[in-house]
């Protein structure tokens, strides 16, 4: 169908205000945060802004009837091209549908539309002493719908895990226009093992099985206290060992972050006033809970990591905590400035390996980077083995792009070789599809069968995941 005809039809269905009417505007939906779409933006045939389940249903029914692809989109902060119409089609921008429908304080749950921003949800929940624990670095901008679709997690995944365990039920518009509710039509319960768990299946399905239009999620009581420990290591191998020691001592911090020497250097070059100690690795532990337990756990961490670390500092005073954490909070910005004529890119940025192999992985990454002549900055969630590698290149020099593509491929292969995964939290999208068979073997066939059962017409966000 011609773009202009498609637009007319969509305007008939939703009204002019919910459809992008100018051709030029479609270009703005040709990218997300992935390096792929920075290099090669792909523009959709139409963009709509549904604000209700009925709106979504109308568009999906129309698309089903006319065999047009449909691609859900949140804030477009995904790093995999997941929300891009790589094979053309209608993009449904759900980010403008941002309603917190109900905060059910008594039942410790909240019901939201897909476009609610993560940070805004937590601001509202805080008024009731509640919070939704997964905390992606993109909290200020990403949508809860996008988090569900990508099963996003973040710094505190060590203790609180990812989005999935918090999702109690979903309303989903299926690729043929059916609307289903998972987790029980009327349920407000927390425990529920009735039926095949379609909620779990939907979470992390990256928008290829249906469009999430309503989310019922579980909240936790907001912890009253926090503490931060910074441990500095002369030997990289000691860092993961120290993490093990802390676990062995019976402590489960909310987050454990690592900066390796590349990140330490990047931070110090960017903001010398932060004065990170020159070292092979720095670990940051975050502990949360009640004040006495935080104090107790902090003391144990100090003692246990002190056996291997050059120095350890523990703080519960907000200003000092912020100072200790500052190195981590500016890492992204610092890696953007490692080269005045270059930029960090989001590619090969999310591998996940066993905790015991983090040190080997970091070393292997540096070797790979050297082999390819690419500068990298390594940091990540060492508490769960999720390593973020930031390659720094000039994306406008074709030879550098070519080199980095090869490097990124090897990074993904390295993750698999290390008994890990090509992605710990960002997802597969369009960029990591080639590794599906290698990672999952025969299981991919069953993934395809599920996809076919849900989306026989093959219109739901094609070209993603496998």
């Amino acid at each position, binding site marked *: 169908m011609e773009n202009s005809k498609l637009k007319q039809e969509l305007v008939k269905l939703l009204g002019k205000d919910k459809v992008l009417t*100018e051709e030029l505007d479609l270009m703005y939906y040709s990218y997300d*945060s992935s390096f792929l779409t920075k290099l090669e933006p792909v523009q959709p045939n139409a963009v709509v802004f549904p604000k209700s389940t009925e709106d979504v249903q109308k568009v999906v029914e129309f698309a089903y009837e006319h065999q047009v692809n449909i691609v859900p989109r949140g804030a477009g902060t995904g790093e995999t091209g997941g929300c891009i119409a790589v094979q053309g089609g209608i993009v449904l*921008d759900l980010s403008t549908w941002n309603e917190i429908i109900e905060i059910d304080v008594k039942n410790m749950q909240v019901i939201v539309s897909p476009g609610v921003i993560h940070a805004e949800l937590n601001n509202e929940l805080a008024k009731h002493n509640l919070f939704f624990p997964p905390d992606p670095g993109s909290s200020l901008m990403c949508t809860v719908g996008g988090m569900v679709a990508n099963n996003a997690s973040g710094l505190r995944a060590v203790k609180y895990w990812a989005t999935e365990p918090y999702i109690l039920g979903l309303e989903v518009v299926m690729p043929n226009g059916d609307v289903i509710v998972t987790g029980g039509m009327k349920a407000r319960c927390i425990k529920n093992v009735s039926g095949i768990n379609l909620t779990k299946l939907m979470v992390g399905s990256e928008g290829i099985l249906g469009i999430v239009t309503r989310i019922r999620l579980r909240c936790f009581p907001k912890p009253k206290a926090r503490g931060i420990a910074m441990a500095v290591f002369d030997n990289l191998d000691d860092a993961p060992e120290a993490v093990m020691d802390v676990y062995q001592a019976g402590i489960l911090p909310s987050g454990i972050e690592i900066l390796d020497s590349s990140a330490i250097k990047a931070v110090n070059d960017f903001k010398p006033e932060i004065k990170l100690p020159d070292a092979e690795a720095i670990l940051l532990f975050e502990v949360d809970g009640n004040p006495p337990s935080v104090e107790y756990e902090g003391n144990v961490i100090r003692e246990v990591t002190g056996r291997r670390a050059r120095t350890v500092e523990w703080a519960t005073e907000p200003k000092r905590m912020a100072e200790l954490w500052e190195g981590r909070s500016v890492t992204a910005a610092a890696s953007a400035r490692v080269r005045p004529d270059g930029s960090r890119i989001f590619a090969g940025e999310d591998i996940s390996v066993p905790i015991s192999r983090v040190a080997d992985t970091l070393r292997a990454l540096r070797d790979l980077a050297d082999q390819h002549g690419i500068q990298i900055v390594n940091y990540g969630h060492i508490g769960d083995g999720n390593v973020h590698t930031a390659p720094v290149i000039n994306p406008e020099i074709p030879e550098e792009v070519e080199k980095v593509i090869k490097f990124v491929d090897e990074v993904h292969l390295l993750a698999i070789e290390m008994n890990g995964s090509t992605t710990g939290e960002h997802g597969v999208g369009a960029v990591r599809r080639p590794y599906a068979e290698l990672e999952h073997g025969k299981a991919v066939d069953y993934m395809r069968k599920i996809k076919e059962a849900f989306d026989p017409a093959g219109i739901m966000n094609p070209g993603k995941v496998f």
Partner: protein
Amino acid sequence: MEFKKLPPVKEQLMKCVRCGKCRSVCPVFAEVGIETTAPRGHVFMVQMLRDGKVEPTNEVYERLGQCLLCETCSVNCPSGIDVHELNAAARSYIYENNPSAGKELLFDTLWTRPGMLRSSARVMSTVQRLGLQTLARKTGLTKILPGDLKEAEQMMDNIPSKSARSTLPEINPARGEKKYKLGYFLGCGTDLFSPSAATAAVDVLTRNGCEVIIPKDMKCCGLPHIANGKMETAQKLAAHNIKVFNAYDFDYIITDCASCSSALSRNNMEFLLAGLKIEDEALALSEKVMDLTVFLIDVLDLKIPVNKTAPKLRVTYHDPCHLANAQLIKNQPRELLSRIPGVELIEMKAANTCCGGSGTYSTTHYEMSMKILDKKMDHAMATGADILATCCPSCMMQLNYGCKRNNWEAEVLHPVELLSRYYRNN
């Protein structure tokens, strides 16, 4: 102007990782919510323009023109991208290649000729007082600002009948022992719309041992031109002002207008005059330029004796984008206010969010500007303040209009006006 060679275009476009952080801070995006208004979207579009993937058309200009140039995205961008500079550069590039894209602003005539600008404003002020708005519209007098001017006309009522220039002498000697010789950069906004701020500034400075010189032949700082796709005119204005001010031997060049000090700042000069011969002279000027409140606090360290009998005044402060974002100046205006006896400073929520005025934006994009203004006014009014203080005549005009729209009787003032009033009453 070689668009592709401008430093932000050459060095920064590639640095955008499309992370979207800027989506969370842009006041326009907060209202519209779609990617065509996101700072990230503007960066993308500038790149498309540079790469020849889109033509310099009116449509592209319109998209980019939705941005207030408030710089909020730029200060929050983890990659250090000056999103507003990219946007402004692109507007000029489009205008150069396609003059129909720019609004007919009369910029190159009126705004570059202070005398004419002043007389138009004077006529308009008279016309308004006589209640002859229709006549003003018909004769096109409201066209001294761009945009659809029914609204501009509403906003510009109460134009003072006398400009600051017409009441202030060129040379204002220091009272008492002379400590500093200052050039006063009298911006068009202050001159025409807030002359009382200028009078107060001169009063406070001369009382505190400063000789204040207002060079007669200075012109507009050029910021409105940058915002409206006319970088070349802005360059000419800068060159002119550099010559005028560098001819004196000033200790500092002071302005009470956030936009003027940001236009004359090192950052902006480097952007505007990159590669031109006068860059060095420009930087010499920038070195001396200082916001009035910064001068009063950091240089003079103004001390006012405690006065328990001073009447109580509840004051809230709005951060002008060109001060808080462009120059990271937030403390000194607040510090100055709190040093004035009787003043109780009450912080409003989101004090450093744009008021939607942004120079000519309120007239080129009236509806959007009002949405942003109304949010600001909600926060301001919630403080229950008597006085809404800010350091930029464009914000003052917008906030005044906000008070009127909301029937709120607070007085909108520059902090220096409060201080001058205090001096005069004590």
